């Protein structure tokens, strides 16, 4: 079974470009219904299928995502 991972998203830095959503092979991420202080909808985790591949974080222009993976 694939290793479990998790992401931490700094929602106040997110600009809602949605590139992370397209890059996630597990469809873990989606856009929020709320907006942050900048007025952008931000990325949120919608399930626990994350494998910690870090694709979302690599493609995030604003470096808002930190990725963890079980050892």
């Amino acid at each position, binding site marked *: 079974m694939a290793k479990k991972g*998790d992401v931490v998203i700094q929602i106040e830095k997110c*600009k809602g470009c949605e590139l992370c959503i397209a*890059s996630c092979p597990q469809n873990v991420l989606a856009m929020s219904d709320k907006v942050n202080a900048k007025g*952008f909808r931000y990325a949120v985790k919608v399930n626990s299928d994350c494998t910690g591949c870090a694709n979302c974080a690599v493609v995030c*222009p604003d470096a808002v995502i930190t*990725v963890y993976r079980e050892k």
Partner: protein
Amino acid sequence: MAENLIKPENLVYEKSKSMTERELHYCPGCGHGTAHRMLAEAIDDLDIQGETIGIAPVGCSVLAYYYFDVDMLEAAHGRAPAVATGIKRVLPEKYVFTYQGDGDLAAIGTAETIHACNRGENILIVFINNGIYGMTGGQMAPTTLENMKSTTSPRGRDIKTMGNPLKISELVAELPGTYYATRHSVHTPANARKTKRAFKKALEYQKENKGTCLVEVVSNCPSNWKMTPAESNKWMEENMFPFYPLGDIKTPK
């Protein structure tokens, strides 16, 4: 299974240490942020943060000196390779890079770019090509594609009256001083990782005093192309990549 994975020992990816905590001013989905990060990560991997000097251009990335946590200098428009030449000659043991857009490097700075490459200065030139003047509002750049619309070519670039798009990487690859010229993109995770490897290679060549290295990053401009970030990446794949094919243009023999 509600095990908490968010512990320092499980960390696999975080923002590069060679970048500051400052929020980037770029538009949502702009490739500049990812290109900054990949270059910063290459600097991290080689552990040369304290020995790197960057030159910021004029253009969207004019504020790059706020984001890279290395010594940075701001050059006059287009003059980054000339400034980098001076710094590298005075401090030859340092790693020197310029970070320039297409309006800076391929338009006003064409002379500096070509002569720095021709002299074979031991610098890394990072060239972000989105085919448009981003900061000033989307005017036509030398790199604008045929029939591509911009604010100064509203009906599309007409080759007869507006000239041909310029492939600057192919141009400098012909010069004897250029050691390594390559073209990448940062719009997908795989491409971004390849770009980082190219930056690393170029910095390693610089250590060996091999000559000028130019890494072009074909990028998007969602705001001025008037598309969403996802649409702009798709448009880039369909229109930019056929004219600016990704891959190595000049590799060491």
